[in-house]
């Protein structure tokens, strides 16, 4: 029996820059001057999202924080600060940091210290998520985009050792990081450490997550890519002789809006698409021409086609059909999520991106309320998924 979880992911976007400024800008991330970010508006946005988190804590919706820099898409740039506040202001739900950017930050030991602190403040409610990052984040963080995956794994290994060592200090002299004296205080609340997640659809990485037993989450991957990713995870475990992973090891993030009616949800869900139509605008040097974006063999295709990552059709209906959005009245959303779970071979943790784009605070609160009260109860005690898909 599977009890699915619902998580709320908000990037705290800033959709208040005049359209003519955004139209004229080369990129709306990394290089848009901060004179366009009014601190009073930002303060109000922080208040609103923290209020949403308080409601999620009451309703039993878990909370995801993340980190992007220098753009209209995200005000969580100082991610550990935000996650620390969430830890202190909530009491019940789990908190996933997905995550602070370990390929950008110079010292994984400092990251481990922040996470241990947050885990203690929350009394063991922290999950730690890792993302490879890339694109404008490499520019904002002055992080070399080459050999980024190797750097990510070394950072994860050092963070894990920092969180699990109790008889320190130990030293680390790796390829990317050195630290002669690692001995973090406090030690984390959870033992041996908080659970690890990673967001990826890269199949070799999914396989490694499988061998390590980390939670594999995909972001808007749609049905096929997600099923393949989970399949790589499962096959790697099987090949390594490890026990079958539970559905709690598989997670998926989608745009989500739950309304009283399908019509209402589609109308408001449509406003989320701002994320795709406006907030991803990036300069060619930070996107398709950034080194390391793809293997050189892929370059002719990506460069000639423009390298756009945007879905071609952005209506709510199209996003729903592609498995990238769950939207409708509560029963509709339940059907969509159950169908998704079946089609990808099992998925226990749905991350809802709801307060995104032009969706208002009040609209987000309404959706969370319906998701918790009308959707979540129908996602409990589910029978096993048809394994035919996963076994193909």
């Amino acid at each position: 029996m599977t009890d699915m979880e619902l998580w709320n992911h908000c990037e705290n976007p800033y959709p208040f820059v005049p359209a003519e400024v955004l139209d004229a800008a080369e990129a709306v991330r990394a290089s848009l001057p901060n004179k366009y970010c009014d601190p009073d508006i930002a303060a109000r946005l922080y208040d609103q999202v923290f209020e949403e988190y308080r409601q999620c804590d009451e309703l039993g919706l878990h909370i995801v924080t993340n980190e992007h820099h220098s753009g209209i898409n995200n005000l969580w740039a100082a991610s550990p600060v935000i996650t620390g506040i969430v830890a202190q202001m909530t009491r019940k739900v789990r908190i996933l940091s997905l995550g602070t950017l370990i390929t950008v930050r110079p010292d994984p030991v400092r990251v481990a210290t922040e996470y241990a602190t947050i885990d203690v403040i929350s009394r063991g409610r922290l999950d730690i998520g890792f993302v490879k990052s890339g694109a404008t984040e490499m520019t904002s963080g002055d992080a070399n985009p080459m050999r980024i995956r190797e750097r990510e794994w070394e950072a994860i290994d050092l963070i894990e050792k920092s969180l699990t060592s109790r008889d320190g200090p130990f030293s680390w002299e790796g390829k990317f990081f050195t630290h002669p004296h690692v001995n973090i205080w406090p030690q984390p609340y959870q033992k041996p450490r908080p659970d690890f997640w990673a967001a990826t659809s890269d199949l070799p990485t999914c396989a490694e997550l499988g061998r390590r037993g980390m939670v594999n989450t995909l972001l808007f991957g749609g049905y096929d890519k997600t099923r393949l990713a989970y399949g790589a995870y499962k096959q790697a475990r099987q090949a390594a002789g490890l026990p079958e992973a539970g559905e709690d090891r598989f997670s998926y993030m989608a745009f989500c809006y739950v309304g009283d009616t399908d019509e209402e949800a589609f109308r408001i869900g449509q406003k989320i698409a701002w994320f795709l139509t406006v907030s991803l605008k990036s300069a060619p040097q930070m996107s398709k021409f950034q080194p390391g974006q793809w293997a050189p063999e892929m370059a002719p295709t990506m460069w000639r086609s423009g390298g756009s990552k945007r879905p071609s059709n952005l209506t709510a209906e199209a996003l729903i059909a592609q498995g990238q959005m769950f939207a409708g009245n509560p029963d509709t959303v339940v059907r969509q999520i159950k169908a998704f779970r079946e089609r990808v071979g099992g998925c226990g943790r749905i991350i809802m991106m709801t307060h995104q784009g032009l969706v208002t605070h009040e609209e987000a609160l309404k959706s969370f309320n319906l998701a918790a009260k009308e959707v979540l109860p129908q996602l409990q005690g589910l029978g096993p998924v048809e394994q035919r898909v996963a076994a193909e």
Partner: protein
Amino acid sequence: MMHHELEILRAGDEAADTLLLIHDINPISHTAPFIGGLARSRYIVAPSHPGFGASPLPADFDTMYDLVNLYLDVLDNLDSDRIAVAGFGFGGWIAAELAVAGHRKLDRLVLVDALGIKLAARDERDFPHLFNTNPADLLRLAWHDPAARPAGIHGVGWQATISDEMTDADLVTLARNWDSLCLFAWRPHMFNPQLKHWLHRIRVPTLVLWGESDGIVTPDYGRRYADLIPGSIFETIPNAGHHPEMEQPTAFVAAVERFLS
């Protein structure tokens, strides 16, 4: 014995004086007219850096230190006992490092629109960030006359010139070169903070040669670079940007020949 495999372009008579060319962001094309010009009187050896062209990238290569030691290996392995070295742009940085490290065979040095040192104030750039600047801007800055750019030549800003005439194989190679350049030069971007205070160790006659219209790295930077190298000569080439060897090959070859002869 070389420990690493390298693709090498060779031109001219092996019995002539050897001129080792250290390329900029892309390997030197055998069709570039300046190669023919230089090869009339010299034996030209132009390797592709590891990770560029057809040269493999060893898994443990990722710093300028690796490239300098590799080129010391190249000097060891060339037959001639008196070798002139010319470095272009990013390759000029490698050549300057190589000359600071010193090698008994190194006889003369030519730095062409070279990068590699930090001169401006800490909150000012000496040159645009090649990976964080729009390719259209780079193209405009890199050439005296971008419209008259020689066909089939991929200089700084080449991303803005991608066309259907370029083959997939060309694009794969350019992508590989771009990745490798980034690996070696993302941070600090295209300079070694220590290099400036060791340039006095360059003991060989040096020509610092600059495209007069170079907007990537200006002639003023070149003049100040030359001032740090004892006894060096600074010259500019008119009507040329960051790649004077490709934009004004005749004038370029003449300037190099005047110096080396």
